């Protein structure tokens, strides 16, 4: 069973459309994240949720809205898609928001969703 699963794997859409990416983790983790990887492979965090509570909200346009119905799910909704939104979006999860052990910081990534805005 996949630990962190994202759907869809590929998403091709027109500018101006609204789309959602879903993420589920079956690891029992408390914290989930969304990252954006651009065409140069640069990885940047967008959001982080801990037990359905928003913890990190980077300077992301408010067209992007994360939603966490429960701690195993973190979905990403994007309104009014723009060409610059084309990227690979990764969901990740970690066991705890913090802690003294190195293990608690480990983030497990999904396989990514490649979004192409035409």
């Amino acid at each position: 069973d996949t630990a962190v699963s994202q759907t869809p794997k590929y998403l091709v859409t027109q500018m101006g459309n609204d789309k959602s990416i879903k993420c589920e983790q079956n690891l029992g983790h408390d914290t989930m994240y969304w990252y954006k990887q651009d065409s140069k492979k640069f990885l940047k965090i967008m959001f982080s949720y801990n037990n359905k509570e928003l913890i990190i909200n980077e300077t992301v346009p408010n067209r992007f809205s994360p939603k966490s119905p429960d701690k195993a799910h973190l979905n990403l909704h994007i309104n009014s898609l723009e060409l610059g939104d084309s990227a690979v979006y990764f969901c990740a999860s970690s066991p705890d928001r913090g802690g003294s052990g190195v293990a608690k910081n480990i983030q497990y990534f999904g396989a990514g969703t490649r979004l192409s805005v035409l």
Partner: protein
Amino acid sequence: QQQVKQSPQSLIVQKGGIPIINCAYENTAFDYFPWYQQFPGKGPALLIAIRPDVSEKKEGRFTISFNKSAKQFSLHIMDSQPGDSATYFCAASKGKEYGNKLVFGAGTILRVKS
């Protein structure tokens, strides 16, 4: 600005060689330094990680060297294999009170020739 600077951008070594990837950081509040490995079409996966209270950590063929005073750390891959060909990212985190936010370097594309 880039908080974690990674070099080189790409690296080609022969099988059995020892590729070295370097990272530097500015913020002394960082207290956790992982390396992630990413294969094409896959998400990044944790390879090895270190905290600043140790100067070296080894796991199998992978070693992190950490220099706290210079604010630098590096990844060494011993006896590299073609299967190690991937993109490697260093990262840094400030820990619990910052939500364990990971700041990534720009990545190094490694190719190991057989």
